[in-house]
């Protein structure tokens, strides 16, 4: 099971947070902060697994993260997930974002966090991996966006600015 998915930048600003277990807002912020502190002090060429988040998880849980340019993608998972599998999944996630946003950068995530959520929802559902095939994910995301467009044609002009 995946317990949480966090994206934050090099300064610890949250860009997306998805908790598959309920915490109140304060705890969520604390977890983000703690995770940032754990992850950010690590060198570039060390392993991508990390134990010992105090707030989230416990002994069975691991933080698995990847660092892309200005962003950290962190998955908090328990022992039923394959570590290398999750690393691949993060890669798939980022590549999908890249396809959907056309050369994704931090700004895309800043202004379109809702879209990122929608993409993520096609990959992971309720803490379990739903789909790992990028093409399938993109197909579903596109189909839903098309549907949205057909519904909200009036406001497209206002929606498109970044």
């Amino acid at each position: 099971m995946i317990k949480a998915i966090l994206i934050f930048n090099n300064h610890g600003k949250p860009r997306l947070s998805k908790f598959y277990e309920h915490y109140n807002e304060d705890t969520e912020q604390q977890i983000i902060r703690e995770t940032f502190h754990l992850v950010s002090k690590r060198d570039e060429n060390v392993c991508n697994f990390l134990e010992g988040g105090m707030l989230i998880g416990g002994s069975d849980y691991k933080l698995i993260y990847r660092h892309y340019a200005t962003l950290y993608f962190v998955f908090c998972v328990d022992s039923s997930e394959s570590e290398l599998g999750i690393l691949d999944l993060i890669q798939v996630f980022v590549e999908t974002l890249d396809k959907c946003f056309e050369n994704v950068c931090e700004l895309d995530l800043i202004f379109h966090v809702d879209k990122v959520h929608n993409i993520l929802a096609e990959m992971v559902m309720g803490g379990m991996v739903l789909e790992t095939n990028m093409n399938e994910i993109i197909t579903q995301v596109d189909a839903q966006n098309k549907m949205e467009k057909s519904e909200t044609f009036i406001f497209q002009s206002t929606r498109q600015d970044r």
Partner: protein
Amino acid sequence: MALKIVKGSIDRMFDKNLQDLVRGIRNHKEDEAKYISTCIDEIKQELKQDNIAVKANAVCKLTYLQMLGYDVSWAAFNIVEVMSSSKFTYKRIGYLAASQCFHENTDVIMLTTNQIRKDLSSPNQYDTGVALTGLSCFVTPDLARDLANDIMTLMSHTKPYIRKKAVLIMYKVFLKYPESLRPAFPRLKEKLEDPDPGVQSAAVNVICELARRNPKNYLSLAPLFFKLMTSSTNNWVLIKIIKLFGALTPLEPRLGKKLIEPLTNLIHSTSAMSLLYECVNTVIAVLISLSSGMPNHSASIQLCVQKLRILIEDSDQNLKYLGLLAMSKILKTHPKSVQSHKDLILQCLDDKDESIRLRALDLLYGMVSKKNLMEIVKKLMIHVDKAEGTTYRDELLTKIIDICSQSNYQYITNFEWYISILVELTRLEGTRHGHLIASQMLDVAIRVKAIRVFAVAQMATLLDNAHLLTGNMQRNGICEVLYAAAWICGEFSEHLENPVQTLEAMLRPKVATLPGHIQAVYVQNAAKLFATILKNQEGNTDSTAAQETSQMMIDRLPLFVQSANLEVQERASCILQLVKYIQKLQQKDVEVAEEVSALFAGELNPVAPKAQKKVPVPEGLDLDAWINEPPSESESEDEQPKAIFTKEEPKHSRPRHTEVDEKELARRREARKQEQANNPFYIKASPSSQKVYQEAPGVEHIPVVQIDLSVPLKVPGLPMSDQYVKLEEERRQKERAEKKKKEKKKRKEKRSGRGKKHDSGPESEEDITPAHVVDIVTEEMPENALPSDDDDKDPNDPHKALDIDLDNLLETTARRPLADSEKLPVRSHRAAGAPKSPAEDGEAENATPQEPKKKSSKEKRDKKKDKERDRKRSKEEKKKKKHKREEKEEDLLGGQAEEAAVQSEETKEVEAQPSSTSAEVSDLDFWLSNAPVPSNTQEAATVAAAEADPAPEAPAGTAADSEPEEPKDTETEESKSSKHKKKKQKKEKEEKEKKKKKKHHHHHHHSDGGGEESVQNGTVEEEEPLPPMSNYCLLAENSYIKMVSDGDCDARLWKFVLLSIC
């Protein structure tokens, strides 16, 4: 109306959307909080409007603010409104917001049930998908109960997109509403073979997640998973399955044997590191579950270790980390194979990556032996010095202690060395683990008698140099060791070389800055020391020395009497009065030493940590019963305050009590001892451990000690442990030379002292005798206590509720069918055309068979009962494996007949339930025991089935004729065979065949009833998963079936036959 909408849209144009909000926040870096609060006010205004677009926009912004840490639960109702919008765009926004901030205590959730149900059955697959996604995040027990049936319906949706989501969300439903597991499981299982790989993967995912928590209930799925494993090419699915097998193998070693080959093949063939790694992991799990001593498995271990070495040597840090992680699993059972890679692991200790260093540390734990312990610890000590971050250093510290103290100090050959290590560790600044070091010191000093002299000397030095440890009160974690030092010096003060000096050190004014609990120990142990000193000094003719000591106590103690800590104060004043009294006696030249030391007489034995809990409640003692009449409530209220005051008084006059004279004290002590001796419930020193002391007269006399003399004992605060390493080398060499001579003695020693120690490791460690013959006192436990402990389990684990036996489901009626109460709640107005749950299907199908059943003769019912009986009986046989069965046969049968009659109604209903043979369990047994089963079981099965193919009409007819007799025949035969069951597997097979054959006939009987019925069953077949196929092999080999298999039969019927067999 239209105008209103237009107006709303125009309003909307001027509202901030999410992008504007984000931009605004970025432009107000200085007063972000203020800006956001104005935004929230705006949002509140927007939410008040009727226009759903405006509301949705507001909710979208709230979702963003929620991520920034703002509580948006006040908008929960608006979120529900947006969720129920008919437009997908808004609905999605609503569900997203709900998934981010709803939880079990959100009260508006109960308003959503019908909306979600509507969305689930929406014709638009994305409406359904969004609802499922949202629900997966905020499902509550109520929602799970109300929607379980709808979701189950969706598991058979035509679109794989919906199917996979529905399958996945079932896990959440099970967690919240465990009752749904049994009814939903057959369909879930069926999804394991869904044509869509995504759905299949989801089903694997869910079952793996379920099985991880309660593996034993899913053991019967092993054949199916095995098939998936050998056929699937999806690495994600493979990984999950292989992980699942890792959880199952500990329960069924035979499964492990079966797995080894395909897993090894995968290890050789796969290029995916993730898959390779999981395969290695599961092979390890298999090897752990198998009993050792299987010669052909050493190859597998070698393969694993080899592959792991490649991983560890890889430049990719991730692989290195995982390699070490897996290595530590092998370590537990096959330490030897890991120990050969010691070089590699020690190398990892120097890695720049902390995660990797920590993993390597874990491995070290299992790699030590008597031979290399000192060497490894020495290396670790160097790391301790180098380590900068305190967390890693603390980790090192705990590891050193773990490594040394593991399995009752098994690997320590020289305890002086260990004490020196502990003393060295006290010089770590700012560690949190002072108490850990302290408890080790105490443990060693108490349990290793021979070391006490040395330990006391070391501790005295520590006390003398206490200022080094406490120099900075901020880093006072380490001052905990003074607690141990003071206690050891006090308790074993007879070994002190210069007790007066130590006493002086313990009563320094600086001590008053220590934490209270340490001061208390100081005071108490000063008294012990005092007693020892008196004893020593009174022997001398000069009595002034003794009086001086008393005077020092009297001078110094008042400092502690003023302590703010109650404990310290109480003890100090108590002891102060005592010393004053003693001084008076001394001035009268009365000898008091005997009596004073009697205060602290007696040996303290170590007690196991959980011993208290383990004391069995004696028979006839009701702990909950009142000893006195329970006080009435009004009474207690009135009298409580009084009691407090009356109690308070004697407290003030307490010091007086300490003046009770020594004789009285001694008498009381004696009386108490007597009482304890007579009290059967008091934990006494176990006779065995006492014996050891007595039988080994003076452990200290044993010769090996001479070497210690060369160790400079009095180097305060300098590292000494290194010296021991050299000494140890010398000693061992010497020993090797003298080995033959010592042979006899050693045996003796072992008998007397080391009897309790574990057998030493697999290496030639027997050769290494410890420097001290160590009497490690085992901790005391009450007699009836069990060492194992269940109280570690978390009673609140949600997965406990999911520990549900699912095999029954697959085994039709006899065991525990789905009762009415177990069906998923169905709402009364169900949307027409929705597929039914299997349970309902069962009912529906029964409607048709009902008629033929009624028509059919009484024989049939009899037969059914018989079948019932057979199943039950076979089950019972399996459980009990009785040989006496025959005797009881009559009664049991009688009883069962009745039971069956009662059940007959119920059985009818469940008749169409997923039908597999009653021999599901034995089926698994068969699958497992059949060692050379081809990996493609299915193929073999189909071939076999092809042979057995046609279910002939004619034999069916004859069988129908002979039916009334047949059950009896099988019964008697079965009862006979049950006697020889264990010995004669073959016979069992035959019996199985018989049963099958019988069922064969039975179902033909059904089909006689009408052609439409078989069609019905054909459809059922699609819904119901095929259980493991292995029995078909059996079928093919059976001569009876072959003989019969000549006739032909239409395809539908054939399907039916297939079904009835399995």
